[in-house]
């Protein structure tokens, strides 16, 4: 097993004084596609936001590339953030900028590239996510799936080692969703990037997921961990088996 890119140790997360998840312990290996799964409202996205340093956990530690993102000073945190990219449910593109400008933004912040160089990189990244020629479009002019892909191009702009994807298939039709799954796999193959996907879509999980953790809202912790098919077939937790087999029967 390769070195872990992410290590989560005895993590407790929540809002204010309300605990959402506790005693979370897992690690993500370099180059794998890691899925965080669970029912709606169980705290998947919240866990991801803790992992990317947006929220501070109530207890425990999260280490990215061997460094704690919880206790890191602002400068170190910023340096860590430069090494990973994040795509959000709705794409989170800035409506005041064109698609190309959205992709150029991290380049302008972190590199010394000239504007034309930035634009070249942006065009290449857009081509990578099958959005060549859409650079001058405004985000409002794109469909939901295209926005997500544009968001992915922006997340990949700095060639990150780690990519977080929050619900990439949410709100998309199955064909578009399947297209995004293929894109994620292609990314991993082309650049060897480690990918963490938050999803409740079993099709996606079974298509791209190599390692899955299942979060349970009632238990407030991880109830199962392993390969998706393995969990569906042999998990000791009946809820996990039922959850994964409902759609997983097709596979």
């Amino acid at each position: 097993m390769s070195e872990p890119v992410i290590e989560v140790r005895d993590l407790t997360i929540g809002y204010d004084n309300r605990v959402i998840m506790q005693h979370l312990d897992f690690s993500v290996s370099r180059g794998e596609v890691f899925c965080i799964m669970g029912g709606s409202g169980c705290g998947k996205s919240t866990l991801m936001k803790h992992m990317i340093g947006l929220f501070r956990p109530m207890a425990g530690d999260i280490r990215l590339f061997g460094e704690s993102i919880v206790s890191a000073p602002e400068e170190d945190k910023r340096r860590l953030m430069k090494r990973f990219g994040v795509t959000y449910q709705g794409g989170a593109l800035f409506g005041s900028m064109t698609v190309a400008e959205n992709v150029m933004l991290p380049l302008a912040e972190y590199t010394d590239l000239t504007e034309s160089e930035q634009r070249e990189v942006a065009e290449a990244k857009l081509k990578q996510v099958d959005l060549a020629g859409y650079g001058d479009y405004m985000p409002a002019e794109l469909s939901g799936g295209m926005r997500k892909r544009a968001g992915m191009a922006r997340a990949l702009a700095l060639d990150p080692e780690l990519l977080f994807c929050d619900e990439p298939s949410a709100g998309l039709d199955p064909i578009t969703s399947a297209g995004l799954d293929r894109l994620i796999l292609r990314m991993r193959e082309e650049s060897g990037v480690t990918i963490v996907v938050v999803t409740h879509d079993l099709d996606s999980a079974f298509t791209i997921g190599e390692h899955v953790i299942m979060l349970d809202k009632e238990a407030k912790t991880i109830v199962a961990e392993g390969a998706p098919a393995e969990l569906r077939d042999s998990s000791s937790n009946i809820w996990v088996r039922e959850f994964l087999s409902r759609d997983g029967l097709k596979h």
Partner: protein
Amino acid sequence: MEDLVANWAQNTHKRFHRMVEFLGALCREVVCDLRNWRRFRWRDMLYYLALCGQKSVSIVLLICFLMGMVLALQAALQMRKFGTELFVADLVGFSILKELGPLMVAMIATGRAGSAFAAEIGTMKVNEEIAALTTMGVSPVRFLVVPKLFAMLIALPLLTVFGDAAGLLGGLFIGSTWLDLPVQAYWSRTMDVLSPMNLVLGLVKSCVFAVLVTFAGCWRGFESEPDAQGVGRSATDAVVMSILLIVVGDMLLTMFFAMFGY
């Protein structure tokens, strides 16, 4: 009951802490952008300058002109009793330049820009754009607030100049029609009693109001709940907070200027 009070106190403390933190971040980013002006988001600033400044000119002119007329009418009704109609020029001139010009422009800016800032940032929060900025290592304050602040710092004083001129003309209109004062006499009186300092201090006030409106609008946007109703509430809260800050700021500034005899 005790729990409620304790909860309230804790929340208030946290909110105050966040507000001070936001203010600190704003100051830091302003200094950073002043030092490294090439990083400054000029295009965004121009957009907000157009939104808050150029597109507000007509409404500012209309409201301030009417305000000058109302002031002159009210003053004339009282001063006629004493035969001191010419002093209407003094009252309108001082009121518009020192108080009502900057104040009315700030109120219009609150309605137009303050609420728009809060709604915009609130919506960005809902769409996770703020989170995206943060994870990209871009300071949301620098990216979203600083251009708005500079735009407002330019737009509000310029709008105040328009507002002052319109207000004085409103007073002149009433003075020359309702009061039958010669236009030249009213105008000379206005120019005699007013000094450039009155105008400059009004502009200083409008700069302070620009900071307050931007601060309140953006702060309420960042504090917005991540849902549609939350964004609506934050826009309303931004307007209320802006008006409160403007009135308190106006009082403090007036007292401050009065200490120096202005």
